[in-house]
């Protein structure tokens, strides 16, 4: 009990996302009339505590990447608040936002597209320092060397260009760049999806080591649920622009409440033929609906194996059904 209270008290909210929406307008015709919206992120709320890793999972088109990008204001939010260290990012002016971005960085999925092929590693990793006028030439070189060492690359490589590195090494370069300004929050957008299995484990271990060493907070966006389970403290599951379930890692995997989470978990093939032989799977019918025309009522109603009338009429509320366990389904009731 005392233990539980202590950990509760330690939790500092670093980032609070409240009712975040990002709609992309659909425009048609000569006059570019606004005919509808792609509701990429539709009313999403969650907290990120300092020092934790929040996993954001879902299938392609569920809005997980857009959520990450809207938090950091690569996209302007349509509605809602993003409160980082007590300040609402959505209201900041561009130069204030630029200052704020020092504390929040992003690493990307494609280690080939996210590094400028014409820049040396020194310039790629050192660019943030230059942008913020934080170091002279000599200091910059030193800092880049330290950063490369930190991510497990030989500092002698700083004169080389991205094409001379493998995918895993490039992902390390991207990571070194994101660490250049001592950020507090790093949004990792599918950082390992493009890498081979044996290299994925290397990068995940590195992310974990750095978190411990530097006290970083991560939002880890991915579609690979087994890796998310490994790295996250808490996990939010997204479907068609909404969070359907959010809880700590162990309860999510041991006791998934939302029918979509259940189906998603059962769809992951387990690398063990003995388990696979007997495991029952929930096979979902059909495809993801278009976020431009989400279904009426619950977004998952078109594919849900437990669908009833109310699901096609009313949207379920996102409620706390057990301490720290949130779910949006008409048939998941708070536990007394």
């Amino acid at each position, binding site marked *: 009990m005392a233990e539980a209270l202590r950990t509760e008290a330690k939790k500092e909210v670093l980032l609070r996302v409240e009712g975040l929406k990002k709609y992309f307008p659909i425009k048609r015709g000569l006059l570019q009339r606004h005919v509808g919206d792609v509701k990429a992120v539709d009313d999403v709320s969650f907290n990120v505590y300092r020092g934790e890793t929040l996993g954001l999972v879902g*299938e*392609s088109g569920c809005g997980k990447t857009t959520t990450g990008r809207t938090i950091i204001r690569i996209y302007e939010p349509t509605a809602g608040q993003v409160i980082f260290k007590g300040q609402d990012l959505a209201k900041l002016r561009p130069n204030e936002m630029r200052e704020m971005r020092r504390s929040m960085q992003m690493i990307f999925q494609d280690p080939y597209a996210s590094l400028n092929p014409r820049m040396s590693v020194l310039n790629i990793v050192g660019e943030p320092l230059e942008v913020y006028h934080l170091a002279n030439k000599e200091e910059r070189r030193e800092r880049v060397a330290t950063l490369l060492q930190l991510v497990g690359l030989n500092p002698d490589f700083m004169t080389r260009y991205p094409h001379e590195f*493998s995918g*895993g*090494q490039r992902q390390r370069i991207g990571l070194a760049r994101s660490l250049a300004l001592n950020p507090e929050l790093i949004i990792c957008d599918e950082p390992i999806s493009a890498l*081979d*299995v*044996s*290299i*994925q*484990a*290397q990068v*995940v*271990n590195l992310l*974990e080591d750095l978190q411990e060493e530097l006290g970083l907070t991560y939002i880890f966006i991915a*579609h690979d*649920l*087994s*890796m998310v*389970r*490994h790295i996250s403290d808490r996990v939010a599951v997204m479907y068609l622009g909404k969070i359907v379930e959010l809880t700590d*890692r*162990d309860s999510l*995997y*041991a006791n998934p409440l939302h029918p979509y989470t259940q*189906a*998603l978990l*059962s*769809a*992951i*093939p*387990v*690398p*063990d*033929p*003995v*388990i*696979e032989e007997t495991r029952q*799977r929930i*096979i*979902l019918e*059909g*495809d*993801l609906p278009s976020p431009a025309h989400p279904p009426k009522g619950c977004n998952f109603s078109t594919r849900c194996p437990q669908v009833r009338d109310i699901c096609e009429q009313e949207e379920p509320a996102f409620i706390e059904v057990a301490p720290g366990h949130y779910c949006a389904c008409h048939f998941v009731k708070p536990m007394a």
Partner: protein
Amino acid sequence: MTSTEHLLEVKHLSTRFYTEDGVVYAVNDISYTLDEGDTLGVVGESGCGKSVHALSIMRLIPTPPGKIVGGEIYFRGRDLLKLSDEGMRKVRGAEIAMIFQDPMTSLNPVKTVGFQIMEALMLHEGMDKARARARTIELLNLVGIPEAAQRVDDYPHQFSGGMRQRAMIAMGLSCNPSLLIADEPTTALDVTIQAQIVDLVKRLQEKLGMAVIWITHDLGVVARLARRVNVMYAGRIIESGPVKEIYGNPHHPYTVGLLGSLPSHGTRAAARLFSIPGEPPDLIGLLPGCAFAPRCHYQVPRCLQETPPLEEISPGHVVACWEKDKVRRV
């Protein structure tokens, strides 16, 4: 054992690519057999030669720069490598079908899905247009395309990713092949759609009795689907055996490392992941010895000089490693 007992027998197959940067040793002396109705999983990371080996069986290696430099591929007792181009065209699609990773690039965007399936039926089975169309609708139904009779006239872009892959499978099945080679068919798809496709192929296989070679880097899919597994590294098969043997009792350090680098699937959260140090080799120029040796912590001097042969350690389970008796699970 004669070649006619198996549906497919690959013997000492080697494929190389002659590029400006040098010779790429993509597939090096691989041999295995596959029986009627059986399922073989081929696993390995990018560049290990798993796809090139499949394209070699189909004789779809672009020449030049690629060339099958040695070996034999017996299919129902005939050596495919000795067939004329015309003879091979009759095998391809009709007896051996292949489906690819990216269903968008393997379908022609300016022809309807229905037409592309009918084409094969008219060519290989000599059907007229009306019969081919009826059979196409039947096939689309079989692979679970809703409202197949209407969707048959859709273009590929009107299909979702999962539906395109289903259409590809329908095309693959159109002439009742006895072997289906699936090259990472679910890699581009979401997990819930992947589950649909894996399930579909399993059901169709039971119904139609064809053999399947499923190429993937996903060890989970193989565990679900395959009966036997070939693990490939740097163009060679380094371990092969029944699926439960490979997962339960792996004996090549690479297989052990690969399985160890996956997050645990038990209810307990995993500790630190095991990771294989270093990177896969590039295949330009062929070094003597075991290709995995530079990344292997069981390495002994012999590993850098002599390539280990595949040796049987239990019935049907073969491993190519000099130190295989010392290798333990992580």
